[in-house]
């Protein structure tokens, strides 16, 4: 165990800090609730990802030929470490996160594992540069937790799949360029065995995106309808009808993404600032002993997830398998984030119920927004119940129901 940085890493950390100080604008803070509804903001965020990428700060661990910095020689451990430094400094600097995160963290790693050489070259560099925003076509109205029951079908006609059906809860579909999508290619096979994983250009004719309004009032996710949408067979990832396996790889990346501890730390810091500055009965809220208990309880849970992520990073550096860690991360982090927001609302009292557009709102309304949004994340990406099933069955080997 050694949590210190090497002199090189420290130097790199200083570089990153300097760069962020220069490039993170005070006016475009990390936490802007519901920002994905605003086209101008989307353009800014794409621009921001390009800038980060050009500075060499996005997905460094990817192979050089696909836009990363990893060499066959094996600087991968070094790069993973640097990436961690970048991610941490971004949180500290309250920099906006990557708008193309589903590309970078979900479809990218999946393509590296299952994609053809041509697919990798075609998509990966653009994913990194923020040129291609991706969305995920998994859930359907009839298949949420029971993902494998999906019915969107893709029939093969010559060199194309002809896709018909509907997806739902598709975050970012309203501005995404591409979708990674699960479709049924063999309706006669058992449900897990007739699914394929294909990449769909969102500009294809026959696609209709209809925004769904979230309980926050934002249009963050969508219904996506496919009517005879033609998708080249070259966009198949992995084998035909073997999409379930590919999908699971992405799901695990999704769980890690939703279970990101940097986000949690950022939220807790915000809560602490709030509790220290808001006053009740003439004292800062953070001086109230009962409140201190609850703040400390959250602090401990946040810190344990931080060290837990260090441990997982170490495992990754050593090439050890993470097991069901992604499910634990997803389960714990989403519930923890929601708990942080709930306490923030309590700190705020009546102010906690003010909408972000309202006068007198605190922290631009991020707390009630995130309070709701984090509940959505407890549900999305596999509900807490599903994660518990996974942990019990795959992690502990308990028999399937």
């Amino acid at each position, binding site marked *: 165990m050694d949590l210190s940085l090497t002199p090189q890493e420290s130097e790199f950390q200083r570089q990153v800090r300097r760069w962020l100080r220069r490039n993170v604008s005070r006016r475009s803070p990390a936490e802007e609730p519901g920002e994905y509804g605003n086209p101008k903001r989307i353009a800014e965020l794409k621009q921001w990802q390009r800038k980060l990428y050009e500075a060499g700060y996005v997905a460094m661990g990817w192979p050089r030929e696909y836009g990363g910095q990893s060499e066959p020689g094996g600087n991968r451990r070094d790069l993973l470490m640097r990436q961690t430094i970048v991610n941490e400094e971004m949180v500290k600097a309250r920099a906006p996160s990557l708008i193309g995160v589903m590309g970078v963290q979900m479809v990218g790693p999946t393509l590296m594992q299952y994609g053809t050489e041509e697919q990798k070259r075609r998509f990966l560099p653009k994913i990194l540069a923020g040129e291609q925003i991706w969305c995920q076509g998994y*859930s359907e109205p*009839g*298949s*949420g*937790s*029971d993902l494998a*029951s999906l019915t969107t079908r893709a029939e093969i006609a010559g060199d194309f799949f002809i896709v018909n059906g509907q997806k*739902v*809860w598709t975050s970012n579909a309203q501005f995404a360029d591409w979708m990674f999508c699960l479709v049924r290619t063999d309706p006669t096979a058992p449900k897990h065995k007739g699914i394929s994983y294909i990449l769909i250009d969102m500009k294809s004719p026959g696609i209709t995106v209809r925004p*769904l*309004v*979230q*309980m926050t*009032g934002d249009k963050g996710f969508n219904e996506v309808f496919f009517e005879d949408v033609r998708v080249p067979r070259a966009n198949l990832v992995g084998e035909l009808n073997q999409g379930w396996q590919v999908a699971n790889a992405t799901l695990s990346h999704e769980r890690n993404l939703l279970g990101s501890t940097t986000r949690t730390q950022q939220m807790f810091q915000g809560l602490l600032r709030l509790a220290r500055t808001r*006053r*009740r*009965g*003439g004292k800062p809220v953070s001086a*109230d002993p*009962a*409140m201190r208990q609850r703040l400390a309880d959250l602090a401990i849970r946040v810190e344990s997830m931080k060290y837990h992520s260090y441990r997982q990073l170490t495992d990754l550096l050593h090439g050890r398998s993470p097991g069901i860690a992604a499910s634990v991360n997803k389960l714990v982090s989403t519930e923890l984030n929601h708990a942080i927001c709930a306490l923030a*609302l*309590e700190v*705020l*009292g*009546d*102010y*906690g*119920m*003010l*909408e972000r*557009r*309202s*006068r*007198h709102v605190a922290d631009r309304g991020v707390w*009630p927004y995130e*309070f*709701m949004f984090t*509940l*959505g994340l*407890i*549900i*999305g990406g596999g*509900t*807490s*119940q599903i994660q*518990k099933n996974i942990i019990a069955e795959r992690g502990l080997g308990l028999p399937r129901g």
Partner: protein
Amino acid sequence: MDFGLSDDQLILQRSARDLLAKECPPAVVRRIAEGPSGHSEALDRRMAEMGWTGLLVPPASGGLGLGMLDMAILLAEHGRAAVPGPFLFSALLATRAIVRGADRRLKKQWLPKLASGECTATIALLEESGDSAHPAVLRSRARRKGAAYVLSGRKLFVPYAHCVDLLITACRTSGSDGPDGVTLFLVDRRASGLSIRPLETVDRTRRVCEVEMRRVEVPADQLLGRLGGGWPVIEHLLDLAAVGVAADGFGGAERVLEMAVEYAKTRQQFGRLIGSFQAIKHIAAEMVAEIEPARSLVWFAAYAHDALPREARRASSMAKAALSEIYSRCANRAVQIHGGIGFTWEHDVHFWFKRAKWNELAFGAPAFHRERVAALGGF
């Protein structure tokens, strides 16, 4: 010994449930929630016709002369239906402020109008500090000037100030920081110098406003009770608010449980109804186990206001602390049982989810009330 509702109370409960199911179904809640004013005049009128606005008003002033338990029964139905509008603030809080605090003349002036629904009212207590428990944080001031008082200051989180007729407003009337420097005034919403700006809130079934008072002249005869005698009335109102909100939360918790159970009985996943999964069953059962005993806590607190005044404050805080958390937890679970659809605007459950949070935070969060329970219980 009878810990149950009387036949009249059961009729009140039933008729309220029926009326609200008809006049305030989720579609109406949605329409009002999405609209600018946050209430429906037609619905408010119907409730007045039912006599609900006069529930607590003595018969001599045109009301039904019923008690807090009756009001709690009614408010639980409001909570079930997530009724939007000023009812809680007008028919319970403002009305009781006048019943309790005003002299005969003021009662005669206002109670008949409040009872009939001709006039509505609200209470303007909170200010920037967001703190209603400490008199010292009150900054608004009233100064005598001839036959009037001149009020200046800024109130926040004033429920439905934008649409009621009367604001029962707390101001400081002496140099003292203590409770004896606080006086309540009945302020006409249309008074000159008063500017009211709605604040946008997450719970769209409750609306609150910022009220700016710039040298608002209030006739001296609109002083509620004694000069410097406002604080005990305010404390009483907060107790009533605690019970009222708890009752609302009880009804709301019952409703979200029903919504979740209904959904679980129709939604299929993995080839079976999700309600057949033990995880879902146990979540629902935990909701029952929280809601059922809590019902009695609400009833007792309301009954205490009617019959055991020395226990009323502690019982009110107990009910508020418990129902705040229970409603919030139940609403959270109900959303989770609904899955993705529960997170959409399109589905109704979020109106209850947000109302649960408002209920939790308004009039003292659970920790505040628990500390009061400890203090009043002599811990």
